[in-house]
């Protein structure tokens, strides 16, 4: 049995790739895989999004706008999750796909369309959107991120329960690569490091979270 916690930017295409990798690993593994995508929002993630989308506009207005949009998207995702993880994750991935592949803008019309597309209960979604409960759930996720020492997105924490000697979780930063994720899930850390090196991302890091 494995547990994968993936911390993501609810707007990002890089994070969408990481989510797809987690889904692929979960589908292929023989063992049960419990996985969850948690929205992550901090100063570092805002900075990262700024550099990615508008490197020339380093002003406070842009920064605030980006922060607000990520926050709104995170709350919308949390609202969708109150109808179960599967539907919530479908909503999140459809949103990231629409924003990145179809270059849609984040509007109420888009959200409405995605709610219909993913078969969510519309009335309930609108009740939960921006609700105190959604905010509380988002803040809970930031606490979990903090406990697991997550700074950047996408980051994954993987717990393997099949090995009783492994009483720690593996924290994998910049974890979009399916190959790296798969190797970590199989406990092949040397192969995971090699795959990371091959991906030529110097910021790739593998840490061990331990008791």
């Amino acid at each position, binding site marked *: 049995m494995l547990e994968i916690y993936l911390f993501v930017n609810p707007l990002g295409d890089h994070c969408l790739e990481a989510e797809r990798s987690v889904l692929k690993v979960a589908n292929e593994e023989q063992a049960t895989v419990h996985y969850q995508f948690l929205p992550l929002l901090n100063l570092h993630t805002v900075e990262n999004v700024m550099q990615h989308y508008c490197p020339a506009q380093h002003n406070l207005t842009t920064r605030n706008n980006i922060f607000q949009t990520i926050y709104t998207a995170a709350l919308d995702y949390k609202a969708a999750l109150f109808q179960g993880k599967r539907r919530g994750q479908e909503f999140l991935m459809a949103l990231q796909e629409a924003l990145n592949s179809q270059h849609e803008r984040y509007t109420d019309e888009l959200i409405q369309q995605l709610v219909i597309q993913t078969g969510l209960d519309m009335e*309930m979604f609108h009740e939960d959107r921006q609700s105190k409960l959604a905010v509380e759930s988002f803040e809970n996720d930031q606490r979990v991120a903090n406990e697991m020492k997550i700074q950047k997105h996408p980051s994954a924490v993987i717990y393997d329960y099949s090995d009783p000697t492994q009483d720690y979780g593996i924290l994998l930063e910049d974890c979009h690569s399916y190959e790296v994720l798969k190797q970590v899930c199989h406990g092949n850390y*040397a192969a995971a490091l090699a795959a990371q090196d091959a991906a030529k991302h110097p910021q790739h890091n593998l840490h061990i979270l*331990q008791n």
Partner: protein
Amino acid sequence: MTVQLYTSSSNASSRKARAWFREHDIPFTERNIMAQPLSQDEVKRLLRLTENGTEDIVSTRAKIFGKLKIDLDTISTGKLIDLIAQHPDLLKRPIMFDDKRLQIGYNEEEIRRFLPRKTRQLEMEKVRARLAI
């Protein structure tokens, strides 16, 4: 967050779950959901950690389920949450959860996810050193 354990009296799986948490010295808060039914918000807090939403936590074998003539394919999620808040015996039990995971029913293997882990981040070099052994 302390583990929350939702139980009902005279339920064998609830007793097993309680015994497991005690045996492993894991602090938990128990709540008899028949005596203290869940609010709608509390039902939603469970749902966010389920795979498939309401169908995971509703007991289709419960007498009340047949009595209310619920059709899971057509009922809206919102309406079903209302019914769960009114009729706690619609829920499977035990249900145990913390801030990031949820388990329905007692399962010897799955419950091990609740074993606490403190986290400490080691540097890359230490990982490499470990691998070199």
